[in-house]
């Protein structure tokens, strides 16, 4: 038990902090932070699988997150029949051309010997395919985007349950990872980082600018939810009764009935938002726990030992007959799939898909900071990192504001420096996180909860 003491203590501190937010700010706020912490934890589990287990740098987390979000739109939104009628055939035709292109390129590269002729054939296939797609898709896209552009202007999704999209999101991200892995995994560590960063940027720019797919920067709002809506809760009698019973002490004190009704109404509104977030938190927590159990089992299985061997000494592992390339590709796909799942969860939580908000700062570098701070190679550490860093990311501005006010208390309200500092309080989050990373990298490079290797 003693060896788990630091893990337990670290998590206790973290939950105390979140509860403190609940007491001092609001429970709704605390639960939003908790939900985002859980989503970040899923992302860090994914990044940790790649970096902690196998030593692969993946700076493309943003791309997988966005793809997971796209999956939610494509699966759960109701289809737009007018758009399908207008340009559906063209888009399906273009998809057919893409498949034909891939098949024929595979055929050429399998059956013709490596030569100039082969290169020209492949290049020719790509050029012809692109031209065909251009001819087919061009008018299709135009007519799809013309269908009620203020509301739809895209093909819509399949109208399936939103929870299903989480799995699809994972598959999308895994598929992308397969392609990227095939291209980039042979590269040296820092090349791989740059390549994945830039490829993720390409993926996001496609999602942003292909309006027929998911409305691009026009955003998709009002996505389905796996949990009840606040409005429905506020009118359902069982929920009002629940709130009444829960707050009976508080309500008794109030004298008149009309006043009591007003207070109750306000309480129900607050409680409905808390209830919805609690449901979400329950769902997310289930995902995190399942992932934690699976990854923990994997880490201490023969497969996990093999991965560590590959990470620590690639040559030796390969001399022992382990297929390094294959294992790297596999772990790259697995980790990315987990990140894709997190992306889908995040869009579900927000209820909207905003491709414009996917930026490398927030979705790649912050996630990496979480992994480094938490502890590479330790799943509990990675999750904790997700919690700590997200908490800091959100609460940095209030903390900074408090500190600024504290240290400049002797200055008058109109002092230029004070005003300037208060205005720039939101940017102290970058400072705190940056300094945190630098300190951790220097004095505790293994992270808050270091990797634990159990000798069997």
């Amino acid at each position, binding site marked *: 038990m003693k060896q788990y003491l630091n893990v337990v203590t670290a998590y206790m501190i973290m939950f105390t902090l979140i509860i403190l937010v609940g007491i001092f700010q609001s429970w709704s706020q605390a639960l939003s932070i908790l939900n985002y912490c859980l989503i970040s934890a899923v992302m860090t589990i994914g990044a940790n699988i790649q970096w902690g287990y196998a030593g692969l740098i993946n700076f493309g987390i943003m791309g997988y997150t966005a793809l997971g979000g796209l999956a939610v739109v494509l699966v759960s939104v109701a289809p737009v029949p007018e758009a399908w009628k207008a340009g559906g055939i063209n888009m399906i035709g273009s998809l057919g051309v893409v498949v034909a292109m891939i098949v024929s390129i595979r055929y050429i590269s399998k059956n013709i010997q490596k030569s100039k002729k082969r290169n020209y054939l492949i290049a020719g296939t790509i050029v012809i395919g692109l031209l065909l797609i251009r001819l087919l898709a061009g008018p299709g896209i135009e007519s799809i985007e013309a269908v009620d552009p203020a509301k739809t202007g895209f093909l819509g999704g399949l109208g399936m349950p939103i929870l299903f999209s989480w799995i699809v999101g994972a598959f999308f991200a895994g598929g992308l990872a397969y392609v990227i892995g095939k291209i980039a995994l042979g590269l040296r560590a*820092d*090349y791989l980082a740059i390549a994945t960063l830039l490829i993720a940027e*390409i993926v996001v720019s496609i999602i942003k*600018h292909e309006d027929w797919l998911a409305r691009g920067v026009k955003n998709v709002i009002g996505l389905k939810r796996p949990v009840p809506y606040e409005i429905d809760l506020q009118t359902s009698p069982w929920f009002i009764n629940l709130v009444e019973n829960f707050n009976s002490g508080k309500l008794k004190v109030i004298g008149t009935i009309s006043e009591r009704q007003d207070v109750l109404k306000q309480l129900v509104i607050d409680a409905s938002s808390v209830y919805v977030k609690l449901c979400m938190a329950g769902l997310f927590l289930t995902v995190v726990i399942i992932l934690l159990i699976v990854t923990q089992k994997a880490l201490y299985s023969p497969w996990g030992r093999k991965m560590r061997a590959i990470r620590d000494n690639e040559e030796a592992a390969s001399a022992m007959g382990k297929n390094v390339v294959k294992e790297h590709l596999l772990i790259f796909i697995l980790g990315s799939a987990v990140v894709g799942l997190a992306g889908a969860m995040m869009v579900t939580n927000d209820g909207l898909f905003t491709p414009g908000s996917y930026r490398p700062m927030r979705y790649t570098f912050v996630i990496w900071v979480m992994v480094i701070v938490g502890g590479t190679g330790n799943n509990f550490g990675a999750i904790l990192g997700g919690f700590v860093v997200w908490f800091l990311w959100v609460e940095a501005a209030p903390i900074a504001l408090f500190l600024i006010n504290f240290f400049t208390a002797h200055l008058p309200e109109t002092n230029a420096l004070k005003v300037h500092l208060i205005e720039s309080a939101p940017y102290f989050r970058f400072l705190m996180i*940056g300094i945190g*990373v630098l300190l951790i990298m220097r004095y505790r*490079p293994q992270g808050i909860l270091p990797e634990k290797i159990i000798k069997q």
Partner: protein
Amino acid sequence: MDFLNAIILLLNYTIIPALSYGSQLALGAIFVTLIYGVLRFANFATGDMMSFGTMFAVLLTFYFQSLGINFGFLPTALLTIPFAVIMMILYMLSIDKFVFSYYRIKKSPPVVLAMVSVGVMFVTQAIIRIIIGPFDRRFLDGEKFILKATEFKEMTGLNEGLTIKSTQAITIVVTVIVVSIMFWFLNKTKTGTSMRAYSDNEDLALLSGIDPKKVVLLTWVIAGILATVGGVLYGLDKSYKPFVYFNNMLPIFAAAIVGGIGNPLGAFLGGYVVAFGEIFITYAYKKFFTYILPESLEPNSLMQLLSTDYKFAVSFSLLVIVLLFRPSGIFKGLRL
């Protein structure tokens, strides 16, 4: 006559903008490549370091303007570059002393240094935003145009006008000066040679008595000059916004890798390859073809390979292609 119009059109909308944008990228790419070659890590704080240097130039420009100092028809910012460079070098050296040198002495793997540079990126971004804020700032003054479209039309009697913005000319001229001094230094002086020796083979360089501290110091000094000049030129041409500088890191990385990372000349050319690639592939050639083709063949569509939304994506795809077929860059082994 139509043929001339077509050439002027291309010159105006593709070649001149690509040359100036390419110069800005090239300066950044040489910065990346130098850090990579000598200090051996991919510096993810590149964009923000350029932004940091530019911030001082912007602030000093505003200060100079308030004092009434100007540089005639040239932008005041050019006057402030030396001061901004000094601040920048001081900042870089202190970061090196407090952050990077520890890992260099410990001989940490490059990946660790790259991660550390992510930390530096966060801190630099915070400092910039706290000092100057995240807003868009224009600090260009002086003459805006060297050649205006209407003047050009009057001069030549052509249909197409040629505009040369003063920032474009300044960018190209300053880049040529800075880069040629740098290459002269690297190739012809003894200190420059020792730097290259250190970058090629650290152990042999140390064995022959090259002082590593001096090499590292020089690298940061040159990097500081390149980063500030590149940043200021970009800011003059477009505008100064911290977030945009962070994003510019990506095409700069693409340029450095396309040119073969670790090779300054490759990075210089890589900047232009990326810039020309971006602009040529996203330019709509409709007008160009209406000039050179007979009327019956005039195109109906825009004749655009990719929409301008994908400008950045083009340079990244270029990088992916290069990584696939020539991971060591398209200018492998090219030296002055």
